[in-house]
């Protein structure tokens, strides 16, 4: 797929790979439960699910260190969970509960857990890329080695903020790793109908920025690529644009059945589902099937337990709507 496809997985041992598997499975189950909750009308507004893209979130966030930051889009459940946000409080936020990550004032599109470096999910396409530069600017100003990881979709590469942010990051050599999750569709529109370049990573050339184009469904490759980009950023060598090729198994949002997909496309991508791929790799590396089965069962149970807890939490106090407008 790319020149980096043969990159070695690095120092990720078997136990760590099992952690990645667990995280991806938890996210998959979490998203499946969200899908049910929305379909049942239990949850308000809209939601944007990320089944199929778990390897990008888990591999990239897994390459960060304490003190690093992550920003993502309204399709941000996976990235927020991958930073370590608790399953129950994340469900709680989507259910609009007082114990939710944001006290029920953010919802599905604004999941944030600053205590874990998950600095926010942003619902204006491209709006957070300049903010990710600001996290990098603070690190540079203070002389820390903190890295700002920024996820966005393929559609974001056509909005002005993308170009302003990458230009600024490059000219100032900010420690930012830009990760474009190319899932082939900007909302309902296939990439080729909106975007004149097929290789989105090549947009880095316009900013004299380092670039990588990788298989985003290979969690170990994602991890190794982001680890290398983060190391460059920490060393003062500036930002990187990483294009991670992946696919969302569901439509854009709750109201989208994804009828615009060519026949057979989903099936092709299901064969490249990142979770079975990692399981196969683990088996090949000597992990036992029983261990994988246990991880799978534990992940599913953890999600179900978290959802039950979150459902039982009280609604926010009405007075809370007046709080947090100003400091």
């Amino acid at each position, binding site marked *: 797929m790319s020149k980096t496809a043969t990159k070695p997985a690095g120092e990720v041992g078997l136990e760590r790979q099992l952690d990645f598997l667990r995280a991806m499975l938890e996210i998959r189950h979490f998203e499946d439960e969200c899908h049910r909750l929305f379909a049942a009308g239990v949850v308000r507004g809209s939601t944007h699910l990320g089944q199929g893209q778990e390897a990008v979130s888990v591999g990239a966030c897994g390459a960060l260190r304490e003190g690093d*930051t992550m920003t993502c889009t309204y399709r941000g459940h996976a990235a927020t969970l991958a930073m370590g946000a608790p399953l129950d409080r994340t469900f709680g936020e989507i259910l609009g509960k007082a114990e*939710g*990550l*944001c*006290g*029920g*004032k*953010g919802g599905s599109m*604004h999941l*944030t*857990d*600053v*205590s874990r470096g998950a*600095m*926010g999910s*942003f619902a*204006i396409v491209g*709006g*957070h*890329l*300049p*903010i*990710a*530069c*600001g*996290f*990098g*600017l*603070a*690190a540079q*100003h*203070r002389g820390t080695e903190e890295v*700002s990881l920024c996820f966005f979709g393929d559609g974001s590469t056509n909005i*002005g*903020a993308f170009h*302003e*942010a990458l*230009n*600024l990051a490059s*000219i*100032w050599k900010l420690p930012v790793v830009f990760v474009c999750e190319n899932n082939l569709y900007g909302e309902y529109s296939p990439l080729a109908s909106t975007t004149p370049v097929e290789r989105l990573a090549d947009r880095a050339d316009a900013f004299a920025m380092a670039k990588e184009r990788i298989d985003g469904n290979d969690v170990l490759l994602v991890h190794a690529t982001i680890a290398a980009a983060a190391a460059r950023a920490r060393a003062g060598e500036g930002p990187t644009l990483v294009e991670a090729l992946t696919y969302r198994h569901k439509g854009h949002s709750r109201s989208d059945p994804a009828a615009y997909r060519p026949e057979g496309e989903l099936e092709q991508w299901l064969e490249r589902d990142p979770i079975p791929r990692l399981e196969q790799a683990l088996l090949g590396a000597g992990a036992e099937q029983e261990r994988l089965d246990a991880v799978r069962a534990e992940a599913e149970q953890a999600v179900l337990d978290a959802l039950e807890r979150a459902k039982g939490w009280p609604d926010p106090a009405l007075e809370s709507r007046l*709080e*947090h*407008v*100003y*400091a």
Partner: protein
Amino acid sequence: MSEVTYKQAITQALADELEADEDVLLLGEDIGAAGGVFKATEGLWERFGGQRVRDTPISEQAIVGAAIGASIRGLKPVAEIMFGDFAATCFDGIVNELPKYRYMTGGQVTLPVTIRMTVGAGGGFGAQHSQAVENWFLSIPGLKLVVPATPADAYGLLRAAIRDPDPVLYFEHKGLYNLKGELSGDGAPLALGSADVARAGEDVTVVATQAMRHRALAAADALADEGISVEVIDPRTLVPLDLNAIRASVDRTNRLVVVQEAAFAGTWGASLIAKVVQDGFESLDAPPRLVAAEDTPIPYAEALEDAWLPSVDDIAAAVRATAAF
């Protein structure tokens, strides 16, 4: 303390905050080596260096976004938007990210960002470099709006804005940059949300900001000769607005005129009148009047621009009519 200009007061406030707090940094187009297109940051780059007084690309979205991110990590960025009209190019950052971020996250972040921008007609800059854009931001809870009219206020309110834990938009009126005045003796920051009674009076309350404050004072001088005593109140900040000071004045004069350098619809003046009428209708002896600019973009030619702006005569006529009602 000696007299300084409004512009020098701004430069001094920036220098004093840069000196006082390592976390303060300035971002903007040509603010560094060039000292700013209006020279409001002159000398700061030489004194504090290019890491703290940062020249940026012409990228307003990047400027505002970088300020937002840096503020969340504990810095106190002061971003400059060269002309307020250019805020339209980074509207998302100013209205969707900056003021909603704290709320949407349930208070997980604070955003001590100051955004300076120049506003104001009267200089022949044409329609895209002249608008008083503070009204664009009135309906966005989470922002504070500062509109200084004197050197002392420019200094004290800018220091307060930079120290404030919330996002503050700080509007500098280009027509006032060379206005001279004394700074207060102690140089302390002023409180945001405290109106200034620029002139005490008995018959009519006139509320005005920035250039219009000075025109209102000139009108009050002229009207004094006619036996009309005008109280001029400058709110100094539109958010928070010192409604108590305005109400207390109107409770005495029972007459209100508001003057603004903007057309009528969707403005702080229209909102203020609505609030006073709704809450204190019985205290009014005359319909409140809003002296506003005309409903057009700002024209270029001097005679046209002068005609567009509310004049001293326009203000005096409105006050006379209100007093005589």
